């Protein structure tokens, strides 16, 4: 079995899981969002990796004959990046409001505050 061709994917999976780990383990709302960003960016890398052609070039027609990489994953990821930044912006806006309402962005302290009310 040809393991070398998978090595890339394994690093990417490691990256994804690092991001995912930050999301689920950290208590700070802003850091969670950083993790979410990392997680999503890594998924993007995964998508883009699969579109690569050996010896290919960017899918923009050139005068010289060339092998082009697959443009479809690129299009999908362009959309996904936008979705990602939209989510980040909204999440940060929520974090700002939470800070103003609770005085903290730590999950544990927020939970305490809620219990006290």
């Amino acid at each position, binding site marked *: 079995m040809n393991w070398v061709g998978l090595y890339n994917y394994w690093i990417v999976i490691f990256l994804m899981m690092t991001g995912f780990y930050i999301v689920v383990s950290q208590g700070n709302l802003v850091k969670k969002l950083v993790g979410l960003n990392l997680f999503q960016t890594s998924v993007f890398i995964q998508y883009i990796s699969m579109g690569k052609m050996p010896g290919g070039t960017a899918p923009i027609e050139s005068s010289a004959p060339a092998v082009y990489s697959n443009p479809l*994953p690129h299009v*999908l990821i362009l959309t996904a990046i936008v979705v990602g930044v939209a989510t980040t912006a909204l999440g940060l806006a929520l974090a700002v409001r939470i800070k103003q309402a609770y005085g903290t962005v730590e999950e544990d302290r927020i939970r305490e505050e809620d219990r006290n009310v």
Partner: protein
Amino acid sequence: MIAANLPALQVVLPLLSAPLCVLLGRGRAAWLLATVVSWLALAIAAALLRQVLAQGAVHYAFGDWAAPWGIEYVVDGTAAFVLLIVAGIAATVFPYSLLSVEKEVDPERQALFYAAMLLCLAGLLGIVITGDAFNLFVLLEISALSTYTLVSLGQDRRALTAAYQYLILGTIGATFILIGVGLLYMLTGTLNMADLAERIEGLHQSRTLQTAFAFLVVGIGLKLALFPMHLWLPNAYTYAPSAVSALLSATATKVAVYVLLRFLFTIFGTWFSFSDMNVDWILIPLALVATFSMSLVAIFQNNVKRMLAYSSVAQVAYMTLGIGIVTVTGLTAALLHLFNHALIKGALFLALGAVFYRIGSVQLDRMQGIAREMPWTMAAFVLAALSLIGVPMTVGFVSKWYLILAALEKGWWLVVVLILITSLMAVVYLWRVIEAAYFRPRPADREAVSEAPWGLLLPTWVLALANLYLGIDTDLSVGVAGEAAQRLMGLGP
């Protein structure tokens, strides 16, 4: 021209009205636009259903690019049915929202609120009929992002944390779906659902396909609040503005259930999902645990919205139970319950919204004796509650009946007993509300209130009566659901 473009209009109309709402900038005008659009959407959904029933599935290619190259909408029986539910609920919630929103949302934010409502509606409608796996993800995010916004606009500060939590879990779910779709694309080279289904056939042994399946199920599970992944739901429903709670509880999880159906049956195929992956072994135990535990939790809630939110998790579990049974009857039950639960929860939350409008709270102790002051509101609540319990002559009875039938077909007596027990538990928690509202004296410190205004009462009663009417005249819902179930199982035409 219009008839040919109905599938596109169904989604594009609300989508384009959202920026118009922002342009209008004023609460009432935006409301008027939103309401008219929601009615138009209902009309389109009805027309589509008729079209589909008459001539079979409708395919619509965006930009006139044929299917695997472009994006396609496919409206089949099931989709048209779910469209009708979503649009129908929206068409009652939107008119309702005028008064309720004026009370609960800042005047400056009202136009944005309606824009978000329209975007949410458009996203949900789009998810139902899209025939493209990636487009599904995009629409999912449109509806999700607008939902986070809507939830966060609740008055309580806990609405913010609820929305945040929802955002994190929802985005994890969406990213899982993205990973799943990516793996599928990697294996097949296509994103079109029909094309995917065809190409997956030969790949059942592929470990990559199995991973994709797992990720998609978990991702969708997060979105539909499948039992251990339901943590976002109770808070989100409790602290959202009333109109939003009603819209979400009636539509969002239902659409997610529908997406699960789509993936399990249409894309991966019954054989792969249930024989190779044995997803029913996971769905059924989870569903059983969920109905039982969530009903139990609901009994101990003092906030009625929260109580109903837990009840929603339990009810969604009924649907997954129906899916897990994997028979035509089971699926019929799931689809019927999808339809009926939307009506039930819609009515219940609208009634609660009316109560909240008057007394500013839905805590049980604040609601004591409310029935004397707001008889019509509480009557609608009782009607919908009976339906939730599953009393004959209501829609709730119909779907439970089919669910029990499906379990009996399989000879699963234990499941039947459990369904009956959880129905009894529903009686218990709903009784707490009814007892408080009807048989307790009004707390001394509460000001006297009057009946809810017509603007709130009318939509509530429309849904409540729909519970009754469709419980008696079951031809349409059972007919459509049965046919759709047959087609999903690969038996029908």
